[in-house]
């Protein structure tokens, strides 16, 4: 609640400049020291306040089930920022934009007013182990890199994978599965960097001593958003 301490002139007293000055100063002080309780509960609406979103980005590519993307690049190893398969899907690289201007922007992860960059990815898979050799478990792996302005930085915790299906041994390896991924990328994951874009990598792998086999991807959807937010 704002408190305006007004010194009142006595009745009959001539108003002097000091009185006016004092009254206005007191009002100024009151308005410059507003507390939470000075503003009525739920009185501020969206037309008063700015959006809390500071950056966003979204891309999606649908190859279709009749002409899916073949993933033939072998998994480059744990925590590698290159060697994934990126080409052929525009959704694998997503540039961050300012929601107010739609101009490219970046997110400084070190700011205390931003708790991280949220990234979501969905990869729709048609087939894993394309050659039909399913005597072992074959994998399609998804991973995310973020760009710090000069280099790509891998986010190891982003790695997810799907497996070939069990009935593959009887002649088919069609999987039809979704590999979903949601991340809150912070300095703990990638260091004190500023992120301007990210990309989605795909790769084939296998369990144990099996050799990896190609897979087919129908679509990739990827989005990111950063919000002005406090720590919970």
């Amino acid at each position: 609640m704002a408190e305006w301490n007004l010194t009142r002139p006595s009745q009959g007293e001539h108003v002097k400049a000091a009185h006016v000055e004092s009254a206005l100063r007191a009002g100024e002080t009151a308005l410059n020291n507003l507390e939470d309780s000075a503003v009525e509960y739920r009185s501020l609406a969206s037309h008063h306040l700015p959006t809390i979103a500071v950056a966003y980005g979204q891309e999606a590519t649908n190859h279709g089930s009749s002409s899916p993307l073949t993933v033939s690049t072998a998994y480059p190893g744990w925590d590698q920022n290159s060697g994934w398969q990126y080409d052929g899907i525009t959704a694998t690289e997503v540039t961050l934009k300012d929601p107010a201007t739609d101009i490219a922007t970046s997110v400084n992860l070190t700011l205390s007013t931003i708790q991280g960059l949220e990234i979501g990815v969905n990869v729709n898979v048609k087939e894993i182990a394309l050659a039909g050799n399913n005597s072992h478990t074959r994998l399609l792996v998804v991973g995310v890199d973020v760009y710090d302005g000069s280099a790509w930085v891998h986010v190891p915790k982003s790695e997810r994978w799907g497996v070939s299906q069990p009935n593959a041994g009887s002649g088919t390896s069609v999987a039809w599965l979704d590999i979903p991924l949601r991340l809150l990328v912070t300095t703990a994951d990638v260091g004190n960097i500023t992120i301007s874009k990210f990309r989605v990598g795909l790769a084939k792998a296998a369990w144990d001593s099996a050799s990896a086999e190609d897979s087919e991807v129908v679509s990739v959807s990827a989005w990111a958003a950063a919000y002005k937010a406090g720590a919970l």
Partner: protein
Amino acid sequence: MSHRHPRERRRNDDVAAHDLLEAVVPFQEEVGGRLNEHNFKEDAFAAGEHNAGVGLAVAGLSEAVNPTGGGADQWTDGGTFTARRVDSGRDWSRIPTSATTFVEKSVITKGGPLWITASLQAVYAFDASNQVSSSSVRKPGCQWAIRVDGVVLDLGGCGEDVPFHGTFGFRMPCQAMVVEGLVPLDPGTHLVEVVCMFTPDGSYVQEVVEVYSHDLIVRELRG
């Protein structure tokens, strides 16, 4: 509280104390009340001017778990991560990340609803001791859910009819999973957990599941 001043226009001459008080005191008293939507113009606050926690507060818990070990593109046997195992069972179980830690986050909220997202990689970690040799046996998968203060939310989760293995070779059923939901809560301290339960199935057999890399994101929607 919309302010309308002056209530009475003054003549262009000397102002008496009474006039000043009549003009200013109501204003002073109203400012001493509470400001509201009438006192702020549209777009009164530009981006960057409000405190970070006004609209949203966020907490995260995550871990990166390396699944490889048999070579650059070869995953290891799930038995490597025994400390991460959830034993088979029909009850909701916490997900261990070590002997003493779980996929859980304690948060202190101010009363806004929580928007919770959990993303994880699950591996049904059969090993030599609990492999099923018969291809006719179908194993139940897991349901995944978010539990807040001991109450499992109706967030759906997902079950998977985990494939058999044995006849066609060693298989490691894997599942990338996202569960998400919104829950209203009173202000205070709350425990958010990710839990799982093996789905009931007529041919239920012993199995375990392990959670590898994961992300738990808890957002309080304020304002």
